[in-house]
Structures are given as C-alpha cells and as structure tokens.
C-alpha cells in the first residue's frame, strides 16, 4: 500500500480514491437513516405518502375555492400531486442534507472519512421517500381513471435525475455553510416554506407568458425547480403541459452550476469542519 502523507492542503490528492474506498460507509449511513427514520412511529413509512397527500388535499381545496384552473384537462389533485412529488423530494433532501453534518458532528470530530458521504447519503434517504410517494401516484391515477402518456413517461428519469442534482447541490451548500453559520438552521425551514409558493405548484408555468410576457416566464424559470416541475407534469400528465425549452435549458444549467459550485465550496471548507463544528 502506498505511503500516506499528511500535510497542510494535501488531502486533495487522495480524495476521490478515498471516496471510493468509503463507498460502503455511504451505504451504511443511508441504511441507518432509513432504519431510524420511521422508528417508533405508528404508521411508519406511510408518512412518506401521507405528507405529500395531505398537502395535496389542502392545496386542491384552496385551488377549488380560489377557482384556479390547473392545466384544465387533468384532475386537479393529480395536477397538484405531480408537482408535490419533486418539490417534496427537493425540500426534504435539502433540509436533511443541510443539517446532516451538524447531526453527525460526533462522527466528524472523531473519525476520518470523506465528509461528502454524509450529505450524499441524506439525499438518498429522501429519495426513498420520494420513490414510495411516487408509487402512490399510480393509485391516484387509477382512482381518477387517468391514463398517463407512455411515451412521455419514458423521459421521467431525466427529471428525477435533475431533482437529484438540484437537491444535492443545494444540500452541499447549506451543509457546508451550516457548519460555520448556524443561522442556516433558521433559514432553511423558511426557504422550504416560501419555496412551495415560489414553485409552480398551483399554476402552469405557461400561464405566466399568457398573463404577462415570455420574458417573465424565462426569469421565473431561472429557479431550477420550475423546470423540474414542468418536466414532471409533462411526463406524467401529458403534452398539454407544454415543455418550455428555454426554461428547461435554464433549469439544467442551474442544476449544473448548483452541483459544481456546491462541490467546490464543500471541498474548500471541508478540511476545517472538525475544527469549527
């Protein structure tokens, strides 16, 4: 085995190899978070469905009362639920991975491993919740007798991947920042709460250019979550939820920037985590 050299600023070189060596720890941490997530709860994993489902009920009711049309074709609950799916994934992943370093501070200060493992495994845990909630969509569709467009459905994994990227990138930023600035413990819940209204859960993105102008829609699409929700609706509900291509490109670019800048900042601050936390 090669000699290990410890020097200031040296950790860089073995980083990716180490990350590979610690892949089992990554699996174990995700497994642990899954095991403890619903321990000592009565309904257990049903929470993964209940949370988006109940939110969906309330939002649908709100839309009925305020006479918001949805996309005009698919049933309103489905219209809301397809947006809740990626939003719920993004927001839980963001808050879980954001606090992950703090909740695992005993590990950070006592053992060495590539710190990237911690927020990454939190995202995985949230993904399992997402997968369960996604299965529930099938029941909703059966209930409303709604047949999804199969050709569009094939594109869904791309948008899932995009959600993954967005939550991982944002999670890295928050996690690294929170080690130093605990302020983010208060910022994140606010972001999540506010984000629900900033995301196109109630409306079709295309209605923005109809009401205002396309410029505004493009501006709106700079929020990567907008493109993701549009994509989910397009693949699950069908083509009447138009894909707005400039928005999609902005979304992909946004996610790419989030992930790469998140990785950069995380790596930059990582080596002082144990001293600061």
């Amino acid at each position, binding site marked *: *085995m090669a*000699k*290990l*050299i*410890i*020097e*200031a*600023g*040296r*950790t860089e070189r073995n980083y990716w190899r180490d990350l590979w060596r610690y892949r*089992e*720890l990554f699996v*174990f*941490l995700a*497994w*642990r978070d899954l*095991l*403890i997530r619903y*321990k*000592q709860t009565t309904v257990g994993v049903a929470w993964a469905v209940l949370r988006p489902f109940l939110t969906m009920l309330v939002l649908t009711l709100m839309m009925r009362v305020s006479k918001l049309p949805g996309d005009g074709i698919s049933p309103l609950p489905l219209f809301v639920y397809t947006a809740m799916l990626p939003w719920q994934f993004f927001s839980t992943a963001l808050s879980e991975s954001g606090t992950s370093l703090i909740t*695992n501070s*005993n*590990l*950070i*200060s*006592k*053992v*060495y*491993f590539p710190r990237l493992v911690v927020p990454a495994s939190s995202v995985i845990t949230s993904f399992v919740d997402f997968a369960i909630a996604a299965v529930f969509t099938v029941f909703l569709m059966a209930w409303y007798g709604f047949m999804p467009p199969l050709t569009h459905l094939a594109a869904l994994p791309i948008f899932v991947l995009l959600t993954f990227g967005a939550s991982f990138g944002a999670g890295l930023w928050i996690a690294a920042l929170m080690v*130093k*600035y605990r*302020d*983010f413990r208060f910022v994140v819940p606010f972001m999540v709460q506010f984000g629900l209204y900033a995301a196109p859960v109630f409306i079709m993105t295309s209605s923005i250019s109809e009401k205002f102008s396309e410029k505004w829609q493009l501006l709106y699409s700079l929020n990567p979550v907008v493109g993701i929700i549009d994509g989910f609706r397009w693949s699950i509900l069908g083509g009447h939820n138009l894909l707005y291509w400039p928005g999609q490109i902005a979304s992909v670019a946004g996610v790419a920037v989030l992930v790469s800048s998140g990785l950069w900042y995380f790596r930059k601050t990582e*080596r*002082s985590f*144990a*001293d*600061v936390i």
Partner: protein
Amino acid sequence: MSEPIITVEKLSKRYLLGHQAAKGEGLRHALENAFRAPQQWLRARQQARAARREEFWALKDVSFEVKPGEVMGIIGRNGAGKSTLLKILSRITEPTSGRITIDGRVASLLEVGTGFHQELTGRENIFLNGAILGMSKAEITRKFDEIVAFSEVEKFLDTPVKRYSSGMYVRLAFAVAAHLEPEILIVDEVLAVGDAAFQKKCLGKMQDVSAQGRTVLFVSHNMASVQLLCSTGLLLNQGQVQIVGSIPKVLESYLSQGVEYDGHWTRPEPVPKTAGIYFEEVRILNEAGDVAGHLGCTSSFTVEMRVQATSAFDRAQLAIRLTNQEGVVILSTCSTDSHRQFVHIDAGTHVFRVTFPGEFLVAGTYTLQLAAHQPGQQLFDLIDDTIAICVEETGSVATITKDQRLGVVNPILAWVPQSTAPARK
C-alpha cells in the same frame, strides 16, 4: 525493522483563540462586511486581522518516529496537545505546517462507540460502527460472532442500544473496535470506561494487538496501563516534545512535571465573608514533626489543617480524600469519624490533625482533596488536587521480601500462628 512506520516532521497546529475570532464568524458579521462602506470594511478587516494574531499553537514543531511493532504511549498534562496530535494523525483535522508520513493502514479509536445510534439494535450498531471505523462489510460479517462473544451481550443483540445499561453499551462498542485489524492503531483514553473486570479484558486485548507486531499509539492518563502496555513513550508539554524514549524514563519525567511536593498550602485569598467553614492553612508533617512533601513509606505522617468557622455549625464535617496517581481514591476520612456522629463546630479558628500510619501507603504520588461541608446540605470549601505528597520507597516489606504483591495499600497485618490442628477435610 529499522524503517519507521510513522515519521512526524516539524508538525504544528495553530488554533485561533475563540472569543475574538468567533465574533467575526457569524453570518451577520459576514453580511455586514459585505455591505458596509469600503472604508469601514477595511477597518473591520484590520481589526479582524489583529484579532487573528491571538493565536494558540496546540502543537509546535513536533518531530518523532515510530518503528513498526512499537507501542508508544503519548502522555502529558491536560492541554499538552495529545488529542490534537491524535486528531491530525487520524486525519480528522489538518496540520498548519509540517508533515507526517504513514506507511500502513491506520485505524483510530478516539472514542468508544463513535456513531452508535440509540435507536438501532446491537446487531445493527455493530455493522454501522464497524463501517465507520473503516471495516468492510465482509470483514464485519466474518468477525461478527467473535465481536458478540467478546462483548457478552448476546441476549440483547436485537434490543435497541438505548435500552442497554451503560456497561453493556461500552462493552459492545469496545468489542467492535477491538476487532479492527489495522497495521497502526491509534487509541485515546478508551480504557477509562467500563468496570474493572472489563477494563482488564480490554487491556488484555490491547496487549494481544501489540503482541501480533502491530504498531500502537496510546494516549492515556492512566499511568499504570501506559506502563503495562507501552515500550516507548512521548511526553508532550505545551505542544512541544519534552522527551521521547523508554517508558520508565518518560514516566519519571512526567511525574516530576509541574507538581511541587512542599507539603504546605496556604489560602491564596482572604477567607470569604459568606457563612461557612474555610481552610486557611494545610501542612503535611513527617514523623519528626517537620513540614515535608516527600515522605517515607514506612513512617507515619500527619495532615494538619487550620480552619476558620465564621459562625457555629451543627452537623459540620471536615473530610480528606486521598487519590493515587492512577486516579483511584485510596481512602476518605472525616473529622466526625471518631465520634461516630456529627459534631458541633464553634465559631473561630480550629486546628485539626490527622495522622496516617506508616507501612500503609504504597510508594507513589498522591493528591489530597480537602472539604468542609454539612453532609447532604452544603459544601463550604473544597481544596481539590492542589496538595500532593510523594511517598517514597524506604524499605517496605514488599521490597524486603521481593514478592510481587498487588494492591493499592500495603498494611502490615498480624499473622498469628495457631496451635497445630489437623487440616479440615
């Protein structure tokens, strides 16, 4: 054998002192700086830089080598830099300057049960903890039975560890750690937990590890276990290496560090005004009646205390506790002992003397804690670990008979021969 397995060259670690630096760490400060007028911003920067000058070198130019198979004890007083050194060696934190070369797989054990999760069962925690300490899943599965047997918690394997007693918890945690098989093992103070029987078992396991030719770095405050386990020692003092060498030499240097055995203590500040009983002066007197901190183990010595009671107290008590260098409390003795009940103490100054017999304490250093209190009600005064005595070997029976006797005290008891009677079956 001659090639060192760990080489540490001019290692230094700087920390910025908390109170000043922390001010500049808040988000508010960062935001303020960003939005402030440039001139003000510059001034803040200058201030921040000045604050940063208040730095603290936890380690300074530390260099040493460890040979394969060596078991090195790292010792030093609190704040000497031991933990920082281990943290850098186990790659938890980066050095500020200097360089370490390690030629082998390292496992470090800075805490027992790192990553144990309260909600998970014993079985689940074994896997999780193993992975955190760097074992592969295959490795854990292979050693699983061995780990369980060592921990003695078979029956509770599927119980969440939050329902474990603290002893069981520690046993399970150490069992996992003990089955690591690295070339280099870094251990910090983990033996300070668990009951005596389990500690002994852990020490045995550690000895096995070193007997297998692995390299061990061991930090402990327990000089008895350092002496038992280690072949060489490294003594740190305020972030610098004071001495590296064979363990007896290093221990000797450690024990003479900082403590003065002058057998005399006077209260540094005036007696407080609040009602209570306070120590004014404490003297250790040898058999001849002279003040002395170095005492012979065969002769008696006396602890003399002058106390002041601000008013009369019922149910008050003075107490002395004697602790040896391993941190074991040898005995406690109280002013009320000979009365077998609480006594009244009048207002004013009193002098008490307690005589400890000769042929009783084993050679070594001891610290005295003195307390004035009303048992179960109020503690008036506590003098903790500032008075030390050094009991020297002056020909106790143990040295005369050269038997390897064990025990923390060495009293001479009367062995009375009885008239020969037939042995009972």
